[in-house]
């Protein structure tokens, strides 16, 4: 049996700032199989984006991957040389960012950028590279791709730019795509189009997808599995249906309860009190305990990441075992 597309084990990415060590990603583990979608959910500062950057080897100083392994088809990316990583990045592993202008160079035409990407990893003629670029644009639903190749990024709308960024990510038919909040800046009807493309892609080409988002509603319809992050740690993990219907961790319960459509109109929303803690001086033990309705003295000890039901993990000593009407 071949290894899964991506297996992250005990990943630690820390930032060594003058004010102290920020444990942005602290002991994160998950697995993504080919053709599957993992929804990586969390609020700002939970470490979800840094997890994505770590996989691509894009963490800048003062940040550093300080521990754990990132096994891509059995090969550890954390120990790979920069040259070897360059051969994988954009080729076998691709990333889609929230802001497509981070991907696109504003002063180069789309065709220049796309052909360059093709030639960076494939020994083909320019004409063939152009052909591939055109096909990729067509694949993500850009009308008249031949003419649009001549356009500059500013001539596209936000949704179209994100499609171009996705087309670039698809050029080499990667085995793994890390998408960091790719639809957050887009309108609802355009988001629907992009989600449809992502779904089709995974089903057709067997690409594994990590979809990083703060929006539980998006992953509810898209993902196979969910990992919920809080203050640098995965606090809950499992198949999407189980996590959303029977959440274990009080944070997940609170997060689901905060979604307006889960509440009755006009009644107060179930809110999580307090705010996300600063990662700079996290207290020992469970990082959520100051906001948790179930907190007790034992929560000052670091809770283990335990399997409460088959395939259902949570980092909590007193999870909601009974079904919660969240």
């Amino acid at each position, binding site marked *: 049996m071949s290894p899964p597309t991506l297996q992250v084990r005990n990943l630690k990415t820390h930032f060594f700032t003058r004010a102290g060590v920020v444990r942005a990603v602290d002991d994160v583990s998950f697995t993504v199989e080919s053709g599957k979608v993992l929804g990586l959910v969390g*609020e700002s500062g939970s470490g979800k984006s840094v997890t994505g950057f770590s996989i691509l080897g894009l963490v800048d100083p003062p940040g550093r991957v300080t521990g754990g392994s990132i096994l891509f088809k059995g090969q550890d990316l954390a120990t790979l040389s920069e040259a070897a990583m360059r051969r994988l990045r954009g080729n076998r592993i691709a990333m889609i960012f929230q802001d497509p202008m981070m991907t696109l160079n504003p002063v180069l035409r789309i065709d220049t950028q796309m052909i360059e990407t093709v030639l960076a990893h494939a020994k083909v003629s320019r004409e063939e590279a152009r052909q591939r670029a055109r096909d990729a644009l067509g694949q993500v639903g850009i009308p008249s791709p031949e003419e649009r190749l001549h356009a500059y990024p500013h001539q596209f709308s936000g949704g179209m730019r994100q499609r171009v960024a996705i087309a670039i990510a698809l050029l080499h038919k990667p085995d793994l795509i890390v998408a960091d909040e790719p639809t957050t800046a887009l309108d609802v009807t355009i988001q629907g189009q992009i*989600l449809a493309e992502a*779904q089709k892609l995974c089903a057709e080409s067997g690409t594994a997808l990590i979809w990083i988002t703060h929006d539980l509603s998006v992953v*509810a319809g898209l993902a196979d599995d969910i990992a919920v992050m809080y203050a640098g740690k995965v606090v809950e993990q499992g198949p999407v249906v189980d996590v959303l219907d029977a959440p274990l961790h009080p944070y997940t319960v609170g997060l689901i309860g905060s979604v307006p*459509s889960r509440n009755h109109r*006009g009644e*107060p929303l179930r*809110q999580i009190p307090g705010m996300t803690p600063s990662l700079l001086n996290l207290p020992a033990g469970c990082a959520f305990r100051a906001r948790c309705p179930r907190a007790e003295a034992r929560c000052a000890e670091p809770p283990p990441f335990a399997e409460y039901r088959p395939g259902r993990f949570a980092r909590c000593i007193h999870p909601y075992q009974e079904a919660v009407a969240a």
Partner: protein
Amino acid sequence: MSETLAPPPPALQEAPPIIELRGVSRRFATSLDFAAKLARRLGLPVREEVVHAVDGVDLSIRKGEVVGLVGESGCGKSTLGRMVAGILPPSAGSVLWWGRDLHGLSGAEARQAKLRTQMIFQDPYASLNPRLKVAEIVGEAPQYHGLVRRGGLDAYVDEQLRRAGLDPTLKRRYPHQFSGGQRQRIGIARALAVQPDFLICDEAVAALDVSIQAQILNLFMKLRRELDLTYLFISHDLGVVEHLSDRVVIMYLGRVVEEAPAEEVFQRPNHPYTRALLAEVPRIEARKRAFSGVKGEIPSPLNPPPGCHFHPRCPHAFERCRIERPALREVAPGHRSACHLNDAA
């Protein structure tokens, strides 16, 4: 114009409208640069580009009501909000405040109107002066307008902060020392400090995390009960609007396409655009669904399609939609929609 307005829900029928918009439009023109002016001198067909941000909108908001205004980017919802707030004059049509033209009011009355209508902005990082302490941000306006004496200012500011869910001992701090959710509370305390009866919230929770967003929405609802406030709640998030609003107004490219009581819109949407929008909203209840997506892009407001603005993306469009602008007509009590299909049926 006012005769065509739908009757409000029975409970609110007695209340007079706080704000009434009659055929309000707002156009923005890009001024020509030197080269374009020169080209025009030489007889070339160069014209100023005009954006119809808001195009002939009628809307009335009654006292005590929460009206949700929904639309995608570029539909003119923020421009409409600014005109209601009196920050931006309309290019055509009139804005009536308690039945009187907002832009024809005398100095003292105009000041009253502006004080009693306050705005809460989207970006809690950009809407607070970084060089002022919280106590100054909240206390400046009520002091200037004589709502509080100098001696009572401290206690007054404390009360405003407490009401917005902030610890008054933090009032000597600067905005950068607060998180996004707390800053939004400062913005709310500032707006309430001048004792308004009408709040316009322009994407007030869009920049916040889900758990913080729930806190702020609960605060808005609590304040509504305590202070008898009226809201115009502008948002692209249908879930938020559904939760909060009594009545929902849907805009597309500068025009109102549908308007109805909240439950009605979500249970019996009439306009094809509303239906598409509702179908596309990701719902947490949905599991592994197939996304489809409305066809096509949102057209540029510089060059909107003729007839019904939605016809190039509408699955039901027919010949008339390409030529004639559909009027906003009542399809059920209190439910208005602008679609030619309603005439055919």
